């Protein structure tokens, strides 16, 4: 069955909340009914039909054509189905997502995958700061699922990560994996300064090393661990290059000793 296609008519003047356009909330609605749905934005009243040309189809499979960084909260709270965005998206893409698949063929803004609990996000471009991180006042960030970013990510990727896996094929900004509680963050190219800053538990893999490592991480030597094989088998479906990096012996650094110190950073042995 053909997907439900939403084609952006024009770039919005203000930020646009697209959290209403997720498969489980569109289920059972006709194209006309979808076009009449109201979208949250500034002071104006805007409907889906004002911003998008709607072509009816299977609402479990939503395709958004023509992205812009003003499209916020794409796929927020999604529970099943698939959303494909052809273009960029704004902040909080896939926030609180519980299932399904969100594919962004472009860049994503800040807080992508924030509070995510399950499902699968692929961002073929780059992602902004605090990928998977919590919003102000929240205790934990991402709590499940898999996020793959083909490009680079901004600062504090995996901030307060509680569970789940983030794979970054490109570079990461400063403080990757900051305050991590558990879960796994993999960065294939170089990471910025102070990765794992104040992490309590969890695993950060830096296949391309980092600019500056905190002195509160302690060298535990080079190891070829079975756990890395399991991780390689898991990530190979998402990033073949990341899987290759995991199959080599890696240096284990335990930390952050400034806090609990039960976390770990794995780096390529140089």
């Amino acid at each position, binding site marked *: 069955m053909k997907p439900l296609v939403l084609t952006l008519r024009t770039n919005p003047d203000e930020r646009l909340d697209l959290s209403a356009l997720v498969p489980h909330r569109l289920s059972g609605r006709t194209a006309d009914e979808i076009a009449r749905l109201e979208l949250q934005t500034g002071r104006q009243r805007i409907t889906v039909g004002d911003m998008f040309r709607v072509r009816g189809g299977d609402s479990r499979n939503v395709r958004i054509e023509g992205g812009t960084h003003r499209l916020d909260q794409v796929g927020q709270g999604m529970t099943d189905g698939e959303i494909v965005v052809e273009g960029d998206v704004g902040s909080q893409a896939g926030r609180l997502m519980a299932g399904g698949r969100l594919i962004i063929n472009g860049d994503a803004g800040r807080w992508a995958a924030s509070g995510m609990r399950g499902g699968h996000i692929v961002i073929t471009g780059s992602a902004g700061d605090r990928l998977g991180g919590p919003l102000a006042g929240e205790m934990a960030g991402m709590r499940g699922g898999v996020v793959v970013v083909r490009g680079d990510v901004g600062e504090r990727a995996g901030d307060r990560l509680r*569970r*789940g*896996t983030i794979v970054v094929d490109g570079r990461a900004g400063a403080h990757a994996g900051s305050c991590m509680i*558990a879960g*796994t963050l993999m960065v294939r190219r170089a990471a910025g300064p102070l990765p794992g800053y104040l992490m309590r*538990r969890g*695993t950060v893999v830096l296949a391309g090393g980092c600019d500056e490592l905190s002195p509160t991480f302690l060298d535990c030597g080079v*190891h*070829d*661990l*079975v*756990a890395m*094989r*399991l*991780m390689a*088998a*898991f990530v190979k479906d998402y990033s073949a290059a990341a899987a290759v990096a995991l199959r080599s012996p890696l240096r284990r650094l335990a930390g952050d000793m400034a806090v609990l110190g*039960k976390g*770990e950073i794995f780096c390529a042995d140089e």
Partner: protein
Amino acid sequence: MREMIIKGMRIDDTFAEAFTMRATAVVITADSARWARQAAVTMTGFGTSVIGCGCEAGIESELSPRETPDRRPGIRVLLFAVSTSELQKQLQNRVAQCVLTTPGSACYAGFQGEEALKLGNALRFFGDGWQISKRLAGKHYWRVPVMDGEFVCEAATGLTKNAVGGGNLLIMGGSPRTTLAAAEAAVHAIKAVPDVIMPFPGGIARSGSKIGSKYKASASTNEAYCPTLRGAVKSALGPEIGSVLEIVIDGLRSSAVAAAMRAGLGAMIKLGPRRGAVRIGAGNYGGKLGPHHFHLKDLLR
């Protein structure tokens, strides 16, 4: 007792009586097949009969690196017990003492059952706070630091309450040598059947038992099948029988036990009475104790 003659071999018109048991499975891997096998052999040692060992355990199959979670050589082990609590206890003790201790080993769930038994969830405490939990692809693992690196263990494995224990074949030959040859041929054939084990040494038991004893014991020698007592007791053996061996089969389901018995019968018939067994029977208790009856004539159809 009526019998069939197939290629000169007498097949008793009888049945094996088997019981419903609790069962689980684990996959043990190591850096080499040799060490995976060592861990599995150690874990399944002293696991021949629930009467005295607490569980019946055995190696089900050897796995290639492509078939294991960590892409290393592996062994699949099955364990059977009469209760869930006893199975949990046996699994925990055996993995802790025999697999955790083996160099380079890891242990994973070998079976997705309707319920779960603790595996790594019970063993993780060996890490004394340094253990690491890791969830990948919907599976939960524990990484426990040990002196050669880490022991990786899946958090739980499956439990089935519909397993079948006690499928059996009684192999009767003219001499100990030919009887053992027949039993070995049957064991070799049964090893290819999935989801079954033969818990006795090398798959073969020479001390078949009956229920009860003149002493305070739950089981004692089955004198009706002891050739040296043929003239002294009500023997089930004719003058042509000089030796009897038994193969006991436990399976994750009834159909697996039937397939194993069929494979064993076929191998012994193929070997023939001159080089192997002259008669094959099966052990039962009159059909009143075990719900699973495997009739030899049905298996040969």
